[in-house]
């Protein structure tokens, strides 16, 4: 085998999350009444377009989650030696982006570096000029033909992308116009996306579409890699939040008495500490632990990864209190309902009432709060990384990108591309998540009383 699969902690948690989601989907599909609100979501064009964009991000994130270490060419006496560098399937797919690193900054589509360099030519004259990039536009003999080349390549890529989009549309619908059972907005956005992706792929092969950063890494590659970090912060955190908030909230509301008092005490203490400070304190402590135990980690990737997992854990511990309070209130209301009293008089055990009768009826609150929290967590990551208590500085994330680029604002001419890309990608991700969350809330919130019954 020429590679060794590596499962980092965060990968394992992502797989667990996928498994849980899979079981949930399977369960919902078999129950018509659970499927109904989801049908309402699918009938909302805006929600479906956001879901399409989100699933593109998810795809990148998932490909970036399958990690491996490849074999080094020289073998150590017949024994295989694996590279210390942990790569992902996504890295392999965009290999040119990852490996085409320049010396330092270069603007989007630039042919030369951002800074002048001193060079001695053949006659011994000392020249100060912008050196050509090693990879960006290296195929061009004549520098002045760049604009035409960019347009031609973009058009070819866009054409191919549009063709792929139309082809897949034809294969799924068997015709080229939108009839019944076809969402026009989704189809149009699909075409736009495939066209755009086609153009970007064709350009990214020979140019740095979004420029390069301080150490010459392609900004497009960094932005795409940041997606996984953002998604993990937004989703894995719920693995911590969900069980804590669900069990404690429901138990506090149902059992009342000293259980309620104890649980209320715990969440009042936790929520009375301003969350940024609590996160900062916890992360500082984690940093000390990690720094004093370097022997725990085989590779730098695994150390950065463990720090990411811990960050999710800490974010989860500080953010479950709000949901817990909501669930407690709802359970207090539910436990007075007749059907619960009926169950109690039949002698159903408390645990069974909780799992069979109460939890299913608070699930809509859980779902709404989880999708609403996602975008807040993605935004929080950038802020926390700026404060210095976010992800590991070696981990590629929107926060570290912004942090690195922020210091270069004062330069003349300004280095704007890294900042702009990080903010742009973040905006698209968070906006799509927000729009989708709104649709989910509208579909599941029982307070919005609907007269129409599904499809």
């Amino acid at each position, binding site marked *: 085998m020429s590679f060794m699969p590596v499962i980092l902690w965060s990968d394992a948690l992502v797989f667990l999350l996928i498994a849980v989601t899979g079981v949930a989907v399977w369960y919902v599909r078999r129950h018509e009444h659970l499927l109904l609100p989801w049908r309402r979501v699918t009938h909302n064009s805006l929600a479906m377009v956001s879901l399409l964009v989100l699933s593109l991000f998810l795809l990148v994130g998932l490909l970036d989650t399958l990690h491996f270490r490849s074999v080094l060419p020289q073998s150590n006496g017949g024994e295989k030696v694996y590279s210390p560098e942990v790569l992902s399937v996504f890295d392999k797919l965009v290999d040119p982006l990852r490996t085409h690193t320049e010396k330092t900054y270069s603007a989007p589509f630039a042919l030369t570096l951002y800074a002048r360099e001193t060079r001695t030519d053949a006659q011994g004259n000392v020249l100060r000029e912008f050196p050509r990039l090693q990879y960006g536009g290296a195929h061009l003999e004549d520098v002045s033909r760049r604009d035409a080349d960019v347009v031609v390549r973009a058009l070819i890529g866009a054409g191919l992308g549009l063709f792929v989009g139309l082809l897949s549309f034809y294969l799924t619908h068997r015709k080229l116009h939108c009839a019944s059972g076809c969402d026009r907005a989704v189809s149009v956005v699909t075409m736009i996306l495939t066209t755009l992706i086609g153009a970007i792929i064709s350009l990214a092969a020979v140019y740095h579409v979004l420029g390069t950063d301080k150490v010459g890494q392609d900004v497009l590659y960094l932005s795409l890699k940041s997606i996984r970090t953002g998604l993990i912060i937004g989703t894995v955190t719920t693995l911590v939040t969900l069980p804590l908030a669900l069990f404690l909230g429901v138990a506090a509301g149902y059992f009342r008495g000293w259980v309620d008092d104890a649980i209320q005490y715990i969440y009042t203490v936790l929520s009375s500490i301003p969350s940024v400070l609590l996160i900062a304190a916890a992360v500082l402590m984690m940093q000390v632990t990690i*720094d*004093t135990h370097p022997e725990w980690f085989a590779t730098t990737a695994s150390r950065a990864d463990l720090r990411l997992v811990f960050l999710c854990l800490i974010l989860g511990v500080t953010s479950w209190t709000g949901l817990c309070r909501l669930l407690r209130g709802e359970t207090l209301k539910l436990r007075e309902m007749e059907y619960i009293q009926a169950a109690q008089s039949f002698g159903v055990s408390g645990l069974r009432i909780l799992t069979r009768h109460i939890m299913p009826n608070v699930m809509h609150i859980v779902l709404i709060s989880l999708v609403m929290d996602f975008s807040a967590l993605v935004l929080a990551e950038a802020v926390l990384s700026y404060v210095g208590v976010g992800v590991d500085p070696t981990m590629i994330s929107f926060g570290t990108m912004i942090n690195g680029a922020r210091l270069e*604002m004062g330069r003349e001419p300004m280095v704007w591309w890294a900042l702009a890309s990080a903010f742009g990608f973040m905006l698209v991700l968070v906006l799509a998540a927000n729009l989708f969350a709104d649709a989910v809330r509208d579909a599941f919130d029982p307070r919005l009383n609907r007269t129409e019954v599904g499809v």
Partner: protein
Amino acid sequence: MIAYLFRRILYAVPILIGVNLLTFALFFVVNTPDDMARMQLGIKRVTPESISKWKQQHGYDKPLLINSTASGKDKLTDTIFWQKSASMFVFDFGYSDDGRSISREIVTRMGPSLSIALPTFFVGLLVYVSFALLMTLFRATVLDVAGVALCVVLMSISTLFYIIGGQFLVSKLWHLVPISGYAGGLDSFKFVVLPIVIGVMGGVGSSSRWYRTIFLEEIGKDYVRTARAKGLSELRVLFTHVLKNAMIPILTGVVVVIPLLFLGSLLTESFFGIPGLGSYTIDAINAQDFSIVRAMVFLGSVLYIVGLILTDLSYTVVDPRVRLA
């Protein structure tokens, strides 16, 4: 009322003890003072002697909870817990790693923090409520839809973008105000105006949308129909009746943060170089000065609890039905 206040303050004590124990566990049990010393001195050139010297300098050379070598009440008081954690109850925060009194720093840095946080809070509240009322007035029209769409876009933008973008546009491109810095007195105006505007901008999306939901919920109630049937204009219905009745849900979210304004904003202050408590905290985090972080955590939770009590008191002001007993 007085009895109620007294009881609430008594309730606060166990919560503060919990906060204190939690921070103590975080800062001293998860990582021993030895780890902290190693961290401060650098991992490489560390000797047992330098560790014990550092601990002695900073008062960490005592047992954690119970000092078995001491006698009498010193058994409890001559410990790290008593001297570093329990002393915070009387707001004695001790000294930071560079030897300055934390309490004095907090007092001097409170002014700059408040000069940004207070205007941001009040201007923000005014802007958000008016924007939300406007959207409610034009509900179910194109204007309302556009307003909500604008809110969703605004709340999807990172706070960092508002700060960096605002600094670039206003200070660097237009040269209207200095990029960062602070001065006392009236001079401070040109330094604080941009942070305030950006602070207000950053909250428009989520707050206005939230207030709009509250107003829309109120507008479906019976008293609104009665007011309209009486022949009141829509503006009057909104501004006198709906606004008043929406006060309770608005106050629930708003009053709680007023005491926390003292702590300032971490991001704004560090970007704009304001010597307030926010930048004090962020500097402490970066320098890993644990005593400052510990003090701020405790202060923060005290202020939060004060905020909760104030929220209850504010209910009695806006809603005559609420009686605290």
